[in-house]
């Protein structure tokens, strides 16, 4: 249904089949050498998660498109800086995307707009649920999120999809900073085990 689903499902941090991830690393090596065709393939594989995560954090479609463009251009510009020792290509690209979205919301200009839009945020869990449909990744992530305690799940989704700092999350959930740090970390440990990340 969504043309990106098949691409997304190639991402398999969980299972023995890591070929999808491997291909992305290879593509990035070619991109680093200025191969625009390789970049187009990389774009097709990664634009869904890139745009998706930015959109989830920023909400505003036109800002999201702008940031997505910046991110993809940054991938092109800095492909030679990709260090496989730090993680796979998919992680590298999505990390840039998430950070740029965060940079955008923490810049003062966007902050006001966003305030408005996050006022009536539906519960984060439902946001994941709404997308579930067919994608295996979505199904797995949803299942793993479901295995967390409520406060772990809320901490993680507010931080990652909501783009909130852990201090803000502590404020939102009305728990201490120490407790939030621990909940996020414990939750991620569970997620990691559930997803089968080594």
């Amino acid at each position, binding site marked *: 249904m969504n043309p990106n689903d098949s691409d997304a499902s190639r991402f398999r941090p969980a299972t023995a089949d890591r070929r999808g991830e491997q291909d992305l690393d290879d593509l990035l090596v070619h991109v680093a050498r200025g191969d625009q065709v390789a970049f187009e393939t990389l774009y097709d594989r990664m634009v869904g998660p890139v745009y*998706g995560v930015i*959109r989830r954090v920023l909400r505003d479609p036109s800002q999201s498109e702008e940031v997505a463009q910046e991110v993809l251009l940054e991938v092109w510009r800095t492909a030679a800086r990709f260090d496989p020792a730090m993680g796979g290509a998919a992680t590298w690209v999505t990390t840039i995307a998430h950070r740029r979205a965060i940079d955008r919301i923490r810049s003062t200009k966007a902050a006001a707009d966003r305030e408005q839009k996050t006022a009536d945020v539906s519960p984060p869990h439902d946001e994941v649920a709404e997308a579930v449909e067919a994608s295996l*990744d979505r199904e797995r992530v949803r299942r793993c999120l479901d295995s967390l305690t409520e406060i772990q799940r809320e901490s993680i989704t507010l931080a990652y999809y909501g783009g909130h700092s852990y201090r803000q999350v502590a404020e939102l959930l009305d728990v201490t900073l120490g407790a939030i740090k621990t909940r996020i970390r414990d939750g991620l440990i569970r997620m990691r085990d559930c997803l089968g990340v080594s």
Partner: protein
Amino acid sequence: MRFFRQDLHTLTGAYALDALEDGSELTRFNRHLTRCQSCASEARGFREVATAMAFAATTEPPPELREHVMTAVARTRQLPPEVRTHARPRRTRGTAPWIPWLSGAVATAAIAVAVFFGLGQAHTQNELNSAQAQNRALAAAQARVDAELTQARQHDQALAEILGAPRVQLLSHGTTKGGVAVVVLDAATRKLVVATSGLPSLPAGQVYQLWLIGPVRIVSAGLLPTARSGVTTPIVATGVVKGDKLGLTVEPAPGTKQPTTTPILALPLPV
């Protein structure tokens, strides 16, 4: 102390979700990561969880995004590999090491110069020989420019900014008196860097002066430094406007307000 470490260690989760606020905490944690192997490996695992969450959020972008990105890519220069081995993506912005890039630029200039002399002047064997000799001299001169530029790094932040700019143009042209000027132009900030090689040396009391020659005004862009081994160190000129040409004239020392001789170079600057 023990508590402090423990406290830092529990931040791996928030770190991997980019939920640490910029500032001292992030700086401290980044430093901690370089020392704490288990923290770094835990953070890597958590990043993979975050990646799975990004994939789970997959959304089809507006169709025009592809074209916009490809258009931008076609005219965007890529950065060379980073010298440091463990740089993180966040650190790459605005901190591009410009020396390797510059070496590339100077090498490109050397090729441009070689083509210029090779194709433009090699009509006879005699000229060919002299062109080859000149090419060799220029190659050596360019290496020297490179070394000079490395030195300039410590002194000249303005230079680094132009050479580190995302989109610059490399221009080079011979002068009517021989020798060549190499220009790196940053149209966005309207600044440029000029270096020359192979200009004839001048008698005492005369200097080479650079100009921005526009349709309505001519302004001095400074004097060329004295050449060493035929090469002048790069200097920065600012305030380039549309229609400007970069001019070079020979003037009485210590330079003049307006040019008094015919330019030996008038290079159009596309801004």
